[in-house]
């Protein structure tokens, strides 16, 4: 007998393949997606008791096709076209086309007419094979919100008249960039969640890694896809050490590196090394390279900050942004001393994307602490704690401030 996890993994693996086959046959993505969800639910109920069928993909395609026909007939009846509906014979369960549509599906789910929240929800359901309930639990929003997001997103795709095919040229690369962004967003949602009560959210990181692996199988030559997968692996490898047992954030400098996932680091390092050697450089590859330098240091003191600074300079040139600016300044401080970092921080404050941002105050606090200006460091930590939108960060920043409290006079 198969375990529920085995069945779940298999269903999630098959979900995009079955959906692709259905969309090829019936064209209409909206109803096909609903039909596949129903087939997945039916399988999740039947397979644990009856065992996995000999050809699980065919089983799912047949059940989903039946559901599609039922829905089509209901719809046709509603439109008083019973005659046509009755004439429609149930489709033959075979042949299931031997094409792999996962990539086309990913591009469709990350369609530019959708908001990011909708792209994420649709990707996780249609390609990831997650249920609406699972997505809602992971994102801490009501199930009705997710259900509505998905149905509205499908309506919008239909209204846009997009066909189920692979776009070409510039459009193709722009659309792949949107997919990478959605996958990275899913990863970060899970990664930034602390352990313990947020277990459902942590599952998002494994879903993001799984989907990015699938994408890499389809685009093995794409350096940025490899870079994103490496970045996820190298970041996720630190997860066991980044929170304390009671859910407090542990900074990189204080993490127990023995608890890092050595296997994930090895895989990530190999991936990024190969990508950097063979593909045009891009922002995900550079971020992965930085993560690799951190992960390869046995102790925090061994970190090769010169190399990290060089990589941030490069990233700052090809993909500038407020967080890149801040992280580059941290590297400057580690190479040239905290005062040098603080000077650059004062200049960076003019950037409207950074003015008043809690990360800027947190970096300033950290550099002031390194420069041994305890009074100013404490004030900056407190300011950062007030400005952050994260409870975990607030706790961390307040504890740093408290650590610097002046000794009470006897």
């Amino acid at each position, binding site marked *: 007998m198969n375990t529920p996890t085995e069945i779940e993994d298999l269903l999630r693996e098959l979900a995009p393949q079955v959906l692709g086959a259905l969309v090829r046959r019936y064209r209409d993505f909206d109803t096909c997606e609903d039909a596949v969800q129903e087939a997945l639910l039916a399988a999740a109920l039947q397979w644990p008791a009856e065992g996995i069928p000999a050809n699980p993909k065919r089983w799912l395609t047949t059940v989903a096709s039946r559901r599609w026909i039922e829905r089509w007939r209901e719809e046709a009846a509603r439109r008083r076209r019973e005659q046509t509906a009755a004439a429609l014979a149930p489709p033959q369960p075979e042949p299931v086309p031997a094409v792999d549509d996962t990539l086309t599906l990913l591009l469709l789910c990350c369609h530019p007419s959708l*908001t990011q929240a909708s792209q994420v929800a649709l990707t996780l359901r249609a390609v990831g094979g997650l249920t609406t309930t699972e997505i809602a639990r992971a994102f801490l*929003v009501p199930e009705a919100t997710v259900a509505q997001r998905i149905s509205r997103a499908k309506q919008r795709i239909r209204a846009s008249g997009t066909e189920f095919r692979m776009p070409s040229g510039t459009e193709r690369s722009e659309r792949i960039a949107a997919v990478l962004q959605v996958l990275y967003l899913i990863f970060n949602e899970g990664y930034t*969640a602390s352990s313990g009560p*947020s277990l459902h959210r942590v599952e998002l990181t494994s879903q993001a890694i799984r989907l990015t692996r699938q994408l890499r199988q389809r685009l093995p030559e794409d350096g940025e896809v490899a870079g994103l997968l490496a970045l996820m692996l190298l970041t996720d490898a630190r997860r066991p050490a980044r929170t304390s047992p009671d859910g407090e*954030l542990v*900074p990189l400098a204080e993490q127990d590196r023995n608890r890092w996932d050595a296997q994930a680091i090895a895989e990530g390092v190999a991936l990024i090394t190969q990508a950097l050697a063979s593909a045009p450089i891009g922002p995900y590859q550079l971020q992965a390279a930085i993560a690799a330098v951190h992960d390869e240091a046995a102790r925090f003191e061994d970190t090769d900050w010169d190399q990290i600074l060089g990589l941030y300079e490069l990233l700052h040139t090809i993909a500038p942004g407020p967080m890149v600016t801040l992280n580059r300044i941290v590297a400057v401080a580690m190479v040239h001393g905290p005062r040098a970092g603080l000077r650059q921080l004062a200049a960076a404050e003019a950037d409207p994307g950074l003015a008043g941002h809690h990360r800027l105050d947190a970096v300033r606090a950290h550099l002031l602490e390194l420069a041994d200006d305890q009074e100013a460091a404490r004030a900056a930590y407190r300011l950062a704690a007030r400005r952050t*939108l994260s409870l975990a960060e607030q706790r961390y920043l307040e504890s740093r401030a408290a650590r610097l409290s002046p000794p009470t006079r006897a």
Partner: protein
Amino acid sequence: MKYLILIYGNPASRKIWEGFSDDQRAEGFRYYAALTEELAASGELIVSEALADPSLTTRVSVRDGTTLTSDGPFAEAKELLAGFFLLECESVERAVEVAARVPEAAFGLVEVRPILNLGGMEM
């Protein structure tokens, strides 16, 4: 990111509403319905509600394990919460853009508050 858009009412805004004709009120409701529908269609809406009249407020306090209640109206507050939108949107700029379309914004009665999340970045 989740944002709460808070819509307040004050004596002046209530007076304007009370002075509206039936048609003007119907127009107001239609405007709100269309805004809510648009936010649902974009996937950004989590929930939106309008609150009943402030005079129907019940204040709750617990003293020594006993629950005490007192009923409104409470004269001391000039501006009272009248309704809210809970949204999930890509940036605070987007939340502000939506807030600016709430009619009460013309009277300075609309606020955007970010929601604290449970996650946190490595520092």
